[in-house]
Each structure stands twice: as structure tokens, then as C-alpha cells.
């Protein structure tokens, strides 16, 4: 709302986040310029000032072009960049850029397709070891960058002074490295890679630069259009570099707004459902690297580093006290050994492949419909058909509960209902209106909702299910002397409950208090994470949520209308951490603590009162003056200078260059998607050299250059949502009012592609990949247009992904078209781009479909090795060993 320019990219905000989009409309009415950069003209584009087309999967080339534009013209906000970012820091001599190694950074190991990151470090004392105790390759196998969550990775030797060149001229300073790295990302190159006409691209650059600086701010908005790529994390890195260079982080109207996938998915990463994280982005201990508590904490904060991550011991011990209560004592490392350990990749896709291979016996699905909603739907269903038991909790009988009788594989004969071994237990779930609790939305805001009506019949809340599951398991194990049952039996499973005995509903309010944390010496709730201690005298279920019950009041339940408070509405809900609405807002003031301008004032130093103040809660130690310099060697928060706004980072600075933490490189680099019809125009290296592939016959890839037979799948396709439907459709295809608004699976094509392939508006067509073929009704529309990429024409196809075999409106499963290839940083699948063919008419049915797709694979010469040569020139195939059952 405070932005002067909004660039929406990798997001169809108006369609997928219509309620949030009201603020874009509001900003537009206040004079903001709105850009929508997207492969397709959508309902978001319809409301933008400027729609800018680009080829799906080419965003880093585009954003790198913006960075080059800023650096080449010296348009950066120098007064911000110098003190607040690592622009002036020197990088080690051993570092080699992609410009030197044709698309690879220094440290690449072809055998493991991972990087030794030590050469990316700042030029400072001491050798650089892999995170924790494990080899570098294991960082990739455990998606470590994900674990850096709300802060940055550990970095040693950065609490003191780091060699730097404030003139930004030294050839090894970050600024110069950045300049060299992006020097070939010219408007001409952007046009050639992205298919974006030069003038259109330059319009975005100019608007961003014009609307940044002291008086103005610009914002980026993205959603899963940026994340669901093999290089997704680097898309966001690229935007971070732009925003740091332009001084748009920590300031009103600036920032990079990540719009989450659906209600409270932010909450499910904060109190995580991810295999490698504990609540509050604490690392899940690894068997190899975290033998005991002391080692664990030493791997999170380096010996000489700044920032609040150095209090991780207090956060973890308080978590252990919350889990195991009185059983957690200093003598037993607060039951640290009760925590599970990870040994490698246990991500959702690895797990599904393991199901196929018979290594997994049971599966819980809660509010998830992988039979429709996850990439490679076929493997999802075949995996689930090979379990002993499957528990599904959902509002309706979704495909993941009924796949054994209505999956497409039943039609092809691959799943025989009579012989499917999986026993499915379906539990009807209570809806959000039928239970108390919080949602955490995209701005990290917790909003409490009160139960409106009682659930009917057997429908129960998630809390009820897990509370009673735990209770029953503990009853079954009562009296056990087996050591491995101790973690379960020692759990502090003592939540307040109400209702009928045996059917008690746990108190969501009490759970929130437990998440907030208690001072165990007084029995009172703590007021925030700075109250947490590492000596076992406090408990806290999620340190970043600490403060949500500050003062004994449910802060998330505050609903003071915005008309009755100032524009930041601090009394509506509660935002982690500490109710701060804009992270790193120290940067909204200049190094001396004064607002950059009256127009963009947010927080500032009040010299008379000797504290930070402003419209938002300062994201800084409240009484640390702007000119503070620590008197001697120290670490953690004490080591933060008065002008170190990025208080979670090891050096207190915004990272233009990531000296460590990302497994695929310190700087974003344009790589083609895993499946692409074109050759990388910038480097010999074609795709991301660390992307996670699962090279096996049941997970085939379409060929990409320089592999042969690329023309068998000549088109690029992408998928996204419609406003009218909800993700995998369980909450919309079952409802008449939503089903009637978008009643059928469609495939959108340009008139040019329709002519080329003989497709008719409203007629049938089917899209084919090496995985399967999916049929849909054709929508010929001007909203898609061919692009000219590297001298050839590239057609793009779009489909929504909401349909499946059950519900009021049915259709083929879009996700069956996709294979599994992941971003090595966070293990998200590349589901936003792949290659395909499209033909008129419905697809073949029954077993004929399998033959039809096999014919395509044969013509394209596809084997398990296709796409598995992740380093283009190294010659190593990353193929999985055949698993014998």
C-alpha cells in the first residue's frame, strides 16, 4: 500500500490471492505503478499498468538483467548499500565465478553434484569447514539451506572487521564480483533468453530505479511461480539483490512479498511439517553431525559471529522443556537424545519413491491430496498403493483416499482394486469454522478464530486427533521398559481439555500458551523470545511465536479495526517476531538513525529518550544507539553494531553475495529449466548443476539440449490456479457454487499454436510428456502468445491443476504430466515448467494410453539417464540403482 512501484512476478496475485490484491489496487489508486511479468496475461495483468511477457523458467535472466542495469548505470542507493550490505567485503582469492568456469562456481564436485563452499567465503581468518561435521554433499542431501530459515547460516570469523573496500573498486569486493557476474545480462540477452521485447524489459528497470531511493520505495511480489523451479531459491535471491541495491529492504512499501500457497501454510513452516526442521526454523538434528546438545548449538552459531541465532541454545532447550517437561533436565541434555535424527533426504518425494520401492509401510495425510496435488501424480498413487496402511484426514473423500478404486491406473490396469494391499483409514475432519485456533498468514501474522459451530458426527479437529492418538499410544505403552518408548512416555502430554471424558477436546488456547512459552520458575507466560533461557527455567514451543501471549493476553485475538488505529494497525492480530510488521526495519533509518525521508519514515532513533521508536515495533535492540560499536571481541547480539540492521545474519549485513548457505552458488545464475527446448544462451552448463534428480525408469525426463530428440516435446507448459478452485480441488470440486464457475479442465493455447496443431476452441486436446498424456478442453486465447527465444519460436501452454477423478466436476490430473526434479536448496519440485507435445482430440484410454506414451519415450530415446547428467560437461549420470523387491 505504501509502494510507489509494484512488480508482480511469479505470481498471479489477483487470481490466487484476491483478498490481498485489494492492497495492490489501493496502492495503484495512490499512484503506484503496477507491473505484471508473467508468461501469460492473467486477471492480474488485466489490472496492471504494464504487462510484460516472458518465457516461463527464465526469470533469473530477467532479474539478472535488472541487476546489470542497476550496476552498469550506478543506480544503486549507495548510502544504503555501503553500510547495510556486504557490497564492500572482499571474497577469497580462490573464488571463481561462472564467468570463469562456463556456468559453474569454484568447488564443484561432479560425483555428488554439490559444491564445496569454502572458496566463496569472505577473505578472513581461518579455514572454512562444511556446516556441522558432515561433508559438503550432505548439506545438499538434507536441503540445508532450508534450515537457515529465519536467519542466515553459521559463519565463522565475521564478528570483528571483515576485509573490505569502501570505495567498491577492489576486484574481489562483492560489488565488483556482482558487476562481472551479471555483465552479460544485457537487455539484448534478456530479449534472447526470455523472449521479452527489449523496450518492455527496460520499462521495468526504469520504473524500479525511478521509484527507489530516499523518497520512494518499490516492492516485489512473488508466489509459487518463483519457488517451484529447480532454481527457485535463486529467483528470490535475485530479487533480494535488486532490493538491497535499491535500498528497498526493511522500509515501508519495499520488500519482497512472498505470497504463500494457502491458508496458514506460513504456519506450517513456522511450526514445521518439513523433515529437516524443528519449530522456529531450528535445525532437525542429524545423526552424523549433532551427537549432543553442545555440538548442536555450536553448529548454529560460529565462534565469532553476530546475531540472534547465537541464542539458539535457549530456543532449543526451551523447546525440549516444552516437549518433555520435568523429564528434561540439565543432566540428560534436556532429553536432547529423544529428538529423532535425520540421515539424509527424507523429503516428501524421496518418501514416495521409497513407497514404490517397498521401504515405507504407513503414511499419514492431513489436509493434503497428493494423488492430485503433488508432482508426478502417477508415482504418488502407485506409492500409496504399495503401503500397509494409509490414514487420510480431510473434509471430503478425496482422491488420495479413493485412489485404489478410481485412480487412472485402475483404467490402465496398473492398480487392481481387489489386489491393492493398502488399507485406507478415512477420518472426517472438522473445518476451520468448527474449531478454535490460529491461522498464520503470508505476512507472518497470527490471527485467532473462535469456533462458530460444533462439528457434526465423527468430524474432529486436528488437535483432537493428535491428542488422542498420543494418549492412546501412551496408554498402550504404559509400563514398557523398552528404552525406545521413553520419548513417548516422557512427553509432557498434559494439555487442558474440555468436553466428555474419552472424547475431550484439547484447549487450543492452552496450546497457544505453550507455544508462547512459560517461565517455569513463576508459572507465568513469557513476554517474548528474549526472555527464554538455556538453563531449563523456561519452556517454549516455538521461539519465534514467543510473545503471542505476552502479558497473559491472546495477542492473536486482537481485532481492533484499522480505522481506529494508525496505518500499521499493530493491534490487529500478532506478527512474529515480537509483533514486528516489517522485518529488518532498522534499515528504514539511515546509519545515524534518522528516517531516510519524511515520506518513508518507519522507525528511528530518538536521542532524547535513548531508544528506537516509530510506527512499527523496532526490529533492533531498543536501546542500542545507531553509532554503537562493541568495545571488545564478542559474539551474538552483543557483537551487532548500531548500523547492522540484519540482526539474524552472521555479519549483520544484507547479503548481495552469499558467502555460504546456498548449495547451488553464491549468486543467482541463469540456468535453463530441467526440461527446456532451448540451449542455455549464457553458459555451456545447461541446467542447475546441483539440481536433485531421481534418475529411474518410473521417473523419466524429457530430453533437453544438448541431448538429442528435443523436438519430440517441442512446447513449454506451465500450470497454476484459478480463483474459482482450491489447490487439489477437495474444497472446491465438491461444492456446486465453485464447480459451476469453472466446470472443466481446460488447456489454454495461443491462436498461433492452435493453428499449428489444429486445435479448436472448446474442442478436446491432450498434452503429452514422457510420463503420461492428459486430456482437456481447448481454450484458444490471445492471453497467450508465442515468444521468440534465441532465434526460434517458443509456444507456451497453460493448464490449471485442480481436477481429478472425483467430485462434481471431474477431469484428468494435471500433475501426472510432471516428473520429480527438485531445487537442491529446499527440495521443492520443478512443477512450473516442463516440455510437452499437444495433439487434438482426447487421449487414448485404458492400456492403450501406456503404449501411446511409451511410443513417445521411444521416439525421444528416453532412458533413466535422460536428464540425469546434471553437469553438462562432466559426463556423470546421476541414476538410481535398480531396487530389487
Amino acid at each position, binding site marked *: 500500500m505504501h509502494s510507489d512501484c509494484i512488480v508482480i512476478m511469479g505470481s498471479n496475485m489477483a*487470481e490466487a490471492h484476491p483478498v490481498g490484491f485489494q492492497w495492490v489496487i489501493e496502492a495503484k489508486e495512490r499512484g503506484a505503478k503496477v507491473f505484471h511479468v508473467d508468461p501469460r496475461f492473467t486477471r492480474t495483468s488485466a489490472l496492471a499498468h504494464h*504487462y510484460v511477457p516472458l518465457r516461463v523458467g527464465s526469470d533469473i535472466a530477467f532479474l539478472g538483467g535488472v541487476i546489470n542495469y542497476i550496476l552498469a548505470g550506478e543506480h544503486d542507493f549507495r548510502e544504503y548499500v555501503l553500510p547495510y550490505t556486504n557490497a564492500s567485503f572482499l571474497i577469497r582469492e580462490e573464488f571463481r565465478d561462472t564467468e570463469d568456469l562456463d556456468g559453474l562456481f569454484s568447488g564443484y564436485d561432479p560425483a555428488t553434484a554439490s559444491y564445496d563452499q569454502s572458496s566463496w567465503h569472505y577473505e578472513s581468518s581461518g579455514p572454512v569447514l562444511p556446516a556441522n561435521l558432515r561433508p559438503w554433499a550432505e548439506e545438499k542431501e538434507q536441503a540445508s539451506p532450508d534450515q537457515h530459515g529465519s536467519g542466515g547460516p553459521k559463519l565463522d570469523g565475521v564478528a570483528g572487521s571483515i576485509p573490505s573496500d569502501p570505495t567498491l573498486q577492489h576486484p574481489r569486493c562483492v560489488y565488483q564480483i556482482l558487476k562481472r557476474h551479471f555483465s552479460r545480462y544485457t537487455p539484448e540477452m534478456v530479449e534472447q533468453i526470455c523472449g521479452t521485447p527489449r523496450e518492455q524489459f527496460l520499462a521495468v528497470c526504469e520504473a524500479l530505479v525511478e521509484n527507489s531511493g530516499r523518497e520512494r520505495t518499490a516492492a516485489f511480489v512473488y508466489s509459487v511461480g518463483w519457488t517451484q523451479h529447480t532454481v527457485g531459491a535463486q529467483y528470490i535471491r535475485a530479487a533480494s539483490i535488486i532490493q538491497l541495491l535499491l535500498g528497498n529492504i526493511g522500509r515501508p512499501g519495499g520488500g519482497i512479498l512472498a505470497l504463500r500457497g494457502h491458508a496458514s501454510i506460513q504456519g506450517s513452516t513456522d511450526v514445521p511439517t518439513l523433515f529437516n526442521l524443528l519449530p522456529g526454523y531450528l535445525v532437525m538434528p542429524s545423526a552424523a553431525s549433532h551427537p549432543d546438545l553442545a555440538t548442536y548449538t555450536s553448529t548454529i552459531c560460529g565462534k565469532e559471529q553476530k546475531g540472534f541465532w547465537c541464542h539458539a541454545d535457549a530456543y532449543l532447550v526451551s523447546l525440549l522443556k516444552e516437549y518433555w517437561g520435568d523429564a528434561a533436565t540439565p543432566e540428560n541434555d534436556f532429553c536432547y537424545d529423544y529428538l529423532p535424527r535425520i540421515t539424509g533426504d527424507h523429503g516428501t518425494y524421496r518418501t514416495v519413491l521409497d513407497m514404490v520401492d517397498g521401504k515405507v509401510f504407513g503414511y499419514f495425510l492431513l489436509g493434503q491430496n497428493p494423488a492430485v496435488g503433488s508432482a508426478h501424480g502417477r508415482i504418488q498413487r502407485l506409492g500409496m498403493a504399495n503401503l500397509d496402511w494409509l490414514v487420510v484426514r480431510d473434509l471430503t473423500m478425496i482422491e488420495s483416499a479413493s485412489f485404489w478404486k478410481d485412480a487412472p491406473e485402475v483404467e490402465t490396469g496398473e492398480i487392481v482394486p481387489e489386489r491393492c494391499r493398502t488399507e485406507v483409514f478415512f477420518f472426517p475432519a472438522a473445518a476451520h469454522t468448527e474449531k478454535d485456533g490460529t491461522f498464520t498468514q503470508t505476512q507472518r501474522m497470527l490471527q485467532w478464530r473462535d469456533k462458530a459451530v460444533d462439528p457434526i458426527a465423527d468430524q474432529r479437529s486436528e488437535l483432537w486427533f493428535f491428542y488422542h492418538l498420543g494418549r492412546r499410544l501412551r496408554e498402550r505403552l504404559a509400563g514398557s521398559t523398552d528404552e525406545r518408548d521413553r520419548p513417548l512416555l516422557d512427553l509432557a502430554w498434559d494439555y487442558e481439555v474440555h468436553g466428555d471424558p474419552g472424547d475431550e477436546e484439547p484447549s487450543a488456547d492452552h496450546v497457544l500458551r505453550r507455544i508462547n512459552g512459560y517461565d517455569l520458575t513463576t508459572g507465568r507466560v513469557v513476554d517474548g523470545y528474549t526472555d527464554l533461557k538455556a538453563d531449563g527455567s523456561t519452556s517454549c514451543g516455538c521461539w519465534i511465536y514467543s510473545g503471542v501471549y505476552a502479558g497473559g493476553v491472546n495477542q492473536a485475538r486482537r481485532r481492533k479495526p484499522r480505522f481506529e488505529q494508525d496505518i500499521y494497525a499493530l493491534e490487529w492480530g500478532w506478527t512474529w517476531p515480537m509483533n514486528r510488521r516489517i522485518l529488518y526495519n532498522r534499515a528504514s533509518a539511515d546509519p545515524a538513525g534518522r528516517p531516510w525521508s519524511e515520506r518513508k519514515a518507519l522507525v528511528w532513533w530518538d536521542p532524547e529518550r535513548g531508544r528506537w521508536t516509530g510506527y512499527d515495533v523496532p526490529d533492533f535492540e531498543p536501546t542500542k544507539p545507531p553509532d554503537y560499536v562493541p568495545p571488545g571481541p564478542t559474539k551474538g547480539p552483543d557483537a551487532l553494531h548500531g548500523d547492522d540492521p540484519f540482526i539474524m545474519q552472521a555479519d549483520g549485513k544484507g547479503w548481495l553475495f552469499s558467502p555460504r548457505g546456498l548449495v547451488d552458488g553464491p549468486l543467482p545464475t541463469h540456468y535453463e529449466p530441467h526440461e527446456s527446448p532451448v540451449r542455455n544462451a549464457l553458459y555451456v552448463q545447461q541446467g542447475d548443476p546441483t539440481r536433485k534428480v531421481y534418475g529411474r525408469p518410473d521417473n523419466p525426463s524429457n530430453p533437453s539440449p544438448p541431448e538429442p530428440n528435443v523436438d519430440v516435446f517441442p512446447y513449454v507448459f506451465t500450470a497454476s490456479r484459478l480463483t474459482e478452485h482450491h489447490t487439489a480441488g477437495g474444497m472446491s470440486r465438491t461444492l456446486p457454487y465453485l464447480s459451476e464457475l469453472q*466446470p472443466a479442465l481446460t488447456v489454454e493455447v495461443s491462436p498461433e499454436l492452435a493453428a499449428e496443431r*489444429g486445435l479448436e*476452441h472448446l474442442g478436446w486436446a491432450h498434452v503429452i510428456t514422457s510420463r503420461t498424456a492428459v486430456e482437456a478442453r481447448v*481454450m484458444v486465447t490471445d492471453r497467450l502468445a*508465442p515468444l521468440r527465444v534465441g532465434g526460434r519460436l517458443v509456444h507456451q501452454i497453460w493448464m490449471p491443476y485442480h481436477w481429478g477423478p472425483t467430485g462434481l466436476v471431474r477431469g484428468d490430473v494435471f500433475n501426472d504430466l510432471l516428473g520429480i526434479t527438485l531445487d537442491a536448496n529446499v527440495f521443492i519440485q520443478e512443477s512450473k515448467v516442463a516440455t510437452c507435445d499437444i495433439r487434438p482430440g482426447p487421449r487414448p484410454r485404458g492400456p492403450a494410453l501406456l503404449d501411446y506414451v511409451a511410443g513417445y519415450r521411444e521416439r525421444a530415446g528416453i532412458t533413466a539417464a535422460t536428464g540425469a547428467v546434471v553437469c553438462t560437461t562432466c559426463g556423470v549420470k546421476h541414476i538410481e540403482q535398480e531396487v530389487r523387491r
Partner: protein
Amino acid sequence: MIRENSLYGPLDDVAADAGHLEHPPRVGFFTDTSVCIGCKACEVACKEWNLVPDDGFDLLGMSYDNSGMLGANTWRHVAFVEQDIPLGGQRTGIAELPTGPSGTPVMTEVVAARLRHAERGGSELGTNPLEVHEPPQDLGMPSFSRPGDDGADGHGAEGRTDFRWLMESDVCKHCTHAGCLDVCPTGALFRTEFGTVVVQQDICNGCGYCVSGCPYGVIDRSPLDGRAHKCTLCYDRLHDGLEPACAKACPTDSIQFGELDELRERANRRVATLHDRGVTEARLYGEDPDDGVGGTGAFFLLLDEPEVYGLPPDPVVPTRDAPAMWRAAGIAAAAFLTAAVGSFLGSRR
């Protein structure tokens, strides 16, 4: 007793004209299509609140519009219009792409062909298009050479150069002179104290006069109960001091509810603002008390001619000519009477 302008022309106080001696100010909708994002929350909220049944699961192919039009089971309808022309104040990168001709005419033709073959749903006077199961006639796809074939430029003069996507949430107009109400023989339709027009299904006998009486094609008979249904402007909610469900649900304030006089002022300011910003297409539809229905209670800011959105360009309430017709009939009757009397007088001679 018919007052002046009770049937046609400007009328300051519709509620008083209908006999509400003391009444709240007239309320209505201002639907500003320049901020509509086509989310259809209005359609869903309307059906949820008013318990309107679904209208069939038919893919219509009219861009993202699968409701088709207003009817007995659709009281809010969002139109989607794809056009290969620019929108004021907006820039699209399409002109410089290697495109061929626009696909919009083909899309329109396919949809029109299907509509011609579609059965009529609702009453025979209703206008619900249904799915056509036989394929439409071959209309011929545009026969242009593939883009990229014709030289370095990639697109010739015939290439599409621009695009805009218009969205508009349509609703009953709650006319100052409501054709449906004036022709209703049972009194099922009535003018509320808020100046809106509401059907009472328990009185409606399903005669369907109102369907032909509405110049906008809004009101329709339901195939389920044979009675007439349409937007009530959430009469029940108005009684409780709430705004109608659609306006409440609209995330971008495209649908604005309020007192009609204030809405008209707001709308005029909005048009001026948009004109200043280069959106010269912006114009109001239905706010003029001098139009054929005496101005509507629900009016619109459009970005193209009304026909583009499926709205009649110059709607006229059928009762406009009623006084003249009655006068003509009266004169004719008088003439007959005179002639008859005259014939008797003459025969006496």
C-alpha cells in the same frame, strides 16, 4: 392514480411513488468495472446468502465466464471480454511478439454457434444456454501462415498488436421504472421502502410477463419451481443494516453499495479521475435519470460500449408507451362510441 413520471422519465422519489410515505433513502449499487478482478466472489456470496441453486456445470468457452448471463439461478454474473485492442493507461508487451491474428473472433464465433444450437433452459422466455453435445459446425480456423514463417519480422500487418481483458459484474438494475414490476398482474413484484424491486415467490403465479417486461433480460423463471427469481438487493440484509452479500464479499470494492445520490456523485468523480489517468474509455451506464428506465438503482462504470458486456445500449421500459397507448385506445374507443352513437342518430333520420 398515475402521477406524472410514474411510468417514464425522471422520478425523484421512487419509494414515495410506490406509496411508502416514510422511507429510508434509495439505495443501490455502483459497480466500478475498472477495478474488477473477475474473482466471482460476488456470484458465490450471492448464492450462499440467498440460497440460490447452482446453474449447471457447463463450460461455455466465453473466456472465464461459465455462468453465461443473469437468470433465475444466477443473480450476479461476471462477464469476461477479451479484445485485441488497448486499454487506456495500460501497456501490454504483445505488439512486439511474433504473433498472428487475434483468436478472439474465432472464440466468439464458436461460442455464438453453440449458443444458436443450445436448448433453452428455464422458462421458454428464459435464456439459459446449455451444453451442446454435438460438435459445432466447422467454422474454419484462421488461415494465416505460421508466425515466424514470414521473414525476420515474424508478424505482418495482420499480427495482433494489443489486448485487454474486461470484467464486469452484472446484476438486476432495480430500475426507477421497473418493467417487471409494472407488468406483474399478481403483485408478486413490489417496490421496497429502499427503492429496490423484489419478487415474492409465494405470490408469483409464474405467468412470465415480467420476463418479457424487463428490458435487460434480468428476471427469469426457474425451471425448478416455475416462478420468477432475481436479485433482491439482499432485502433481508438491508433490514438488518447490512450491505448486500456481493458488495460485502467484493475484495477490491468494485461493487459499492450505498445511497444512490451519493453513489452517483462518487461515480462521476471516478470517471473524471480515470479520464485524467488516460483511461478515456470510462463511462457510466444507467446513472442517468433521463434514460429509458428513469435511471437505474444499480449502475456501472464501463470501459467499452454496453453491448460489449451484453448490456442493451438504450433500454426502454415497456410502460413508456402505456399512457400513449391508453390515450390512443381511449381516442379509438371514443371514436367508436361516437360512430356508434352517430349511426344510431343517423338511422333515426
